[in-house]
């Protein structure tokens, strides 16, 4: 599968990233390489392989509360934290 420059630009927009044209060209090339590897994996013969329900189910947890982390610990890792215990973030576009 080939990723062209337009597709690379679309993905960049969705990821909120900006690239100039030469960079887009380079990204398109690299992504194409990655996807070619996936194509290669597709050639593996998996006929006869059975999914087993037991082996790949997500584990479940009982609904038993656990202690939260302290607010000091939360605040320590926050770039900005208000006195009343909120994270402070820059105002978003259109807010």
């Amino acid at each position, binding site marked *: 599968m080939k990723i062209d420059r337009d597709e690379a630009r*679309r993905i960049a*927009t*969705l990821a*909120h990233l900006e690239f100039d044209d030469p960079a887009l060209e380079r990204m398109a090339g690299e992504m194409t390489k990655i996807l070619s590897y996936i194509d290669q994996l597709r050639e593996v013969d998996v006929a006869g392989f059975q999914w087993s*329900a037991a082996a*790949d*189910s*997500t*584990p*479940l*947890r*009982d*609904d*038993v*509360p*656990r202690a*939260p*982390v302290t*607010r000091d610990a*939360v605040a320590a890792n926050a770039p*900005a934290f*208000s006195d*009343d*215990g*909120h*994270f*402070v*973030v*820059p*105002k*978003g576009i*259109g*807010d």
Partner: protein
Amino acid sequence: MPGKWEAVIGLEVHARLLTSTKIFCGCSPAFGAPPNTHVCPICLGYPGSLPVLNRKAVELAVRMGLATDCEVHPRSVFARKNYFYPDLPKGYQISQFDRPIATNGRIGDVRIRRIHMEEDAGKLMHHGDGSLVDLNRAGTPLVEIVTEPDLANADDAVAYLTRLRQVLMYTGACDGNMEEGSLRCDANVSVRREGEELGTRTETKNLNSFRYVGRAIEHEIERQIAVLERGGKIDQETRLYDVATGETRVMRSKEEAHDYRYFPDPDLLTLDVEPSQIEEIRRALPELPAPRAARYQRDFGLSVKDAEALVVTKALAEYYEAVAAEAANAKAAANWVRNEVLRVLNEEKVELEEYRVTPSMLARLIKLIDSGAIGGKSAKEIFDDMSQSGEAPETIVERKGLSQISDPSAIREAAERVITANAAQVEQYRGGKQQVFGFLVGQLMKETRGKAKAELANAVLRELLDR
């Protein structure tokens, strides 16, 4: 001539599941805690933390699927829904996309397209030139219940929501508390001329009361018709309902690649629920409001209105049934519960669970009436007393001396006093003016303070007058 306008509406309801912990971690999802005190590395989205699914949340989602006649899938898949917003610490929401836990159900005439599980986001408040983020709500377990576009107007939408809320509360999946955001609704609305193809739809977000849902839909229908009649076109967009103005306004455009880049969450394997477990959950489901109301009409001979009013909550229905069974009078029980019990609960803002009058007390009161021991008027007085004092009906009858007089000699004495005191009216009656009889009965009831048994009072009085 162009056809009449008609609206096509579908609803998406987010319901908070009633668990003790969040969907993927052991933090409490309780509403109203101080900001950022119910958080841990998982719901804060710290790198390297791993989500582990809450068994109870799965059970409640399965219950909802079964209660809405959905097909519940033994295997479903969690996906990442990617978007950038500060209330979403991981940069993605864990949700279900192409393989939800349940599909193809219905509530009444409204088809349910799908029910999927997901985590709630945090809360964002705008403040000065920044925004404040509280992540207590992040990771709260939700089900999103999506209808087909089967609704035609605001009233239909509100009726559907009312029934959905009842089912959510009956199954114990959700507390139905709209003020606290346990239930939030998004409305997809489009309009078209009769017989034409579906129009472009808008989505109005986060409606947190039935009234707002109704108003927002009405406003959106009017707005879209006005735009189209002016020759304009409807943009596919997300709108917000403004409570103050009663209008909807654009929140964001859905056109510009609003692509969430869903993909299966590699941190979670498939969710597998054994079919035997699904059956077990099905067997444990309570009787739901619609079949319950039908049973009341069929077995108890109640009217549609009475039956529907009594099944509004499971607690009320159970209360009613307990009264009806013990009183052996389902209709009287329905009247008392619907009119008197609900009135008192409403007036005094009490919950049924903490109401002083137990089903047995009310049932015994009804029995006292049915046996002729007390009259209807006294019954009301005893009922109000019970609501206040919490005393047994028999005790109150005793204390107030309200036992109905069914002793003919006692009534005769009272009737004689009435006849003496109202000589003029007695004269009129005896002269052929039958209507005066009613007045004299009234006097007799007054004389006995309403305790005379009505049939007996009539008979005795007539006997004395016609002598």
